[in-house]
């Protein structure tokens, strides 16, 4: 158990490709931090640098109070869960769990005790003598977790551990990982591209893009108050609707007073848009319906407002029916607007609540 401190961490690949650019992040003891971002954003590279599987070009990584830059993965006292589990195929489940402990010269009695404890926690006791290929995907995943927890490391590193599972199992394991991490209280870093995993698992969410951290915060904080255009568009599925302000002005729409100067783009969450006329506190945009996706509990309505070049997505509660080509009105509540700077794409101070 330990905190992890990244200071000025940089990774440059041969050919001058900068994968991670001068990144700072501190992870408190016992915290579960989720790194999320599109593929190629450097989140996996960062995790592998913490693990010691990638060298660090510049900066320092501290685990506990030790600078681990030059240490082998084995000496960093971390455990990693891989996307494809990376179980040793020729060893039994027990052999897989024991291997790391044996290599560290842990006494036999303690190995047996720890393996049994881990097997009990993960409910894999019946499979201990089986080979990995005789297990189902979910069971393999548990063994991979088991291999991490028997070590009792300072930190767990998860590299998209659930992406090889089917949807149902994934949500089940998600809850389980959360519960396990809480019980053990081990500092964890978790890489995923799955929104849902990111939102539900994280104590602290780190949104990355192009080797940089876009925003760090509690999951809900990031969802409700994205600090940049990228975060606004990336988080949430579907992401935030982004409308260029010039197009709105060209339409003659009355912009609320609180939109700060130099705003280039406004954003609105799909669930905040109301269909139909909703009164003066809203920006009303007439348009046409393109398509409707009925999810059951809600409907995703795709449409185009007259004069805007981008499709708007509305998340309407319940079942919303309509034919493509129908006229509809998008009502955007002024209070729910997010304003982003014309030049930097960063959030402009939202005075929305004051209005």
């Amino acid at each position, binding site marked *: 158990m330990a905190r992890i401190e990244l200071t000025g961490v940089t990774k440059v690949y041969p050919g001058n490709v900068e994968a991670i650019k001068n990144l700072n992040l501190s992870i408190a003891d016992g915290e579960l931090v989720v790194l999320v971002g599109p593929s190629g954003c450097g989140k996996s590279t960062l995790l592998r640098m913490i693990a010691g599987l990638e060298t660090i070009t510049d900066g320092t990584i501290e685990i506990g109070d030790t600078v681990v830059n030059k240490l*082998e993965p084995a000496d960093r006292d971390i455990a990693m869960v891989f996307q494809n589990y*990376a179980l040793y195929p020729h060893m039994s489940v027990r052999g897989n769990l024991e291997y*790391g402990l044996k290599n560290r010269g842990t006494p036999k009695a303690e190995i047996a005790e720890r393996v049994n404890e881990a097997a009990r926690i993960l409910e894999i006791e019946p499979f201990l003598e089986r080979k990995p290929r005789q297990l189902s995907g979910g069971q393999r995943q548990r063994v991979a977790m088991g291999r991490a927890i028997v070590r009792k490391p300072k930190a767990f590193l998860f590299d998209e551990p659930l992406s090889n599972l089917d949807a149902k199992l994934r949500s089940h394991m998600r809850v389980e990982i959360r519960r396990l991490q809480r019980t053990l209280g081990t500092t964890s870093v978790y890489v995923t591209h799955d929104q849902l995993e990111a939102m539900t698992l994280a104590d602290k969410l780190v949104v990355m893009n192009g080797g940089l951290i876009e925003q760090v915060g509690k999951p809900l904080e990031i969802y409700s108050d994205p600090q940049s255009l990228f975060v606004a568009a990336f988080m949430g599925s579907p992401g935030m609707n982004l409308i260029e302000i010039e197009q709105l002005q060209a339409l003659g729409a009355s912009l609320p007073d609180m939109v700060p100067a130099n705003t280039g783009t406004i954003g609105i969450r799909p669930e905040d848009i109301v269909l139909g006329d909703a009164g003066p506190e809203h920006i009303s945009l007439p348009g046409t319906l393109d398509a409707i996706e009925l999810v059951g509990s809600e409907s995703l309505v795709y449409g185009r407002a007259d004069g805007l070049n981008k499709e708007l997505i509305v998340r309407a509660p319940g079942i919303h029916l309509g034919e493509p080509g129908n006229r509809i009105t998008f009502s955007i509540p002024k209070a729910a607007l997010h304003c982003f700077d014309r030049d930097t794409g960063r959030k402009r101070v939202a005075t929305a609540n004051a209005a």
Partner: protein
Amino acid sequence: MVENRPVLTFLTHAVLILGVAIVIFPVYIAFIASTHGPGTFLRGVAPMLPGEHMVENYSRMLAAGHSTSGAPPLWLMLINSTWMAIIITVGKISISIISAYAIVYFKFPFRTLCFWIIFVTLMLPVEVRIIPTFAVVANLGLLNSYVGLTLPLIASATATFLFRQFFLTVPDELMEAARVDGAGPIKFFKDILLPLSRTNIAALSVILFIYGWVQYLWPLLITTDTRYYTIVMGIKRLAAYADQEPQWNLVMAAVMLAMLPPVLVVIFMQRLFVKGLVETEK
């Protein structure tokens, strides 16, 4: 595929049986010849059924050899051949698995170049480089020795290449997991890679054992002392009789005995051999 066409079934079986017969027939003739007395095969009409000299022929060849043709007893040549094949097999596999490990898992300058040099130089068969190789071995004073017999044949590009291809299919995460688990390069090789290569090693052993067993030209060049004769070259000595009809019954007895070990190896290793060739599950 479910098919029910009797004519086709008949035809395919006929072709199959014919093929087997073509392959088996010479072996059968050899066996028959080895069971008859000296002259029977020179009369022009070859017998089709075993004769009664089998025990006599085999025991004579095994124990005493054929002194007039300058060949030692068969048991000595069989032992020599076995040694040679085993040393070549073990040597080839250990050297090539280690070099494949180096080429796949370690980053060093000119790694690809190294691989291609190994590949190109060793792709050349022994026959092509036989004169320089002979010169080197002779200068090292290794003529008439097991070292001389096996050393020049002991490196294998094919095996290196096969192991390299196999290692490339082993997921990188396995190596990374082992690193996190505290296994250094040697431990990873010993605990993970070697057990995973088990079936490949078995399949390759069979092929390499037979390769070593059937070596002819190299033993012929390098051994002049009958104590180091191998069985395959020994047969040639038996058949090469000056001014006299070869004693086919004895030659064929030697041939049958020479065929036996590779056949046994294939039979006993068959299960592993097939598994090694078809296994895809990691």
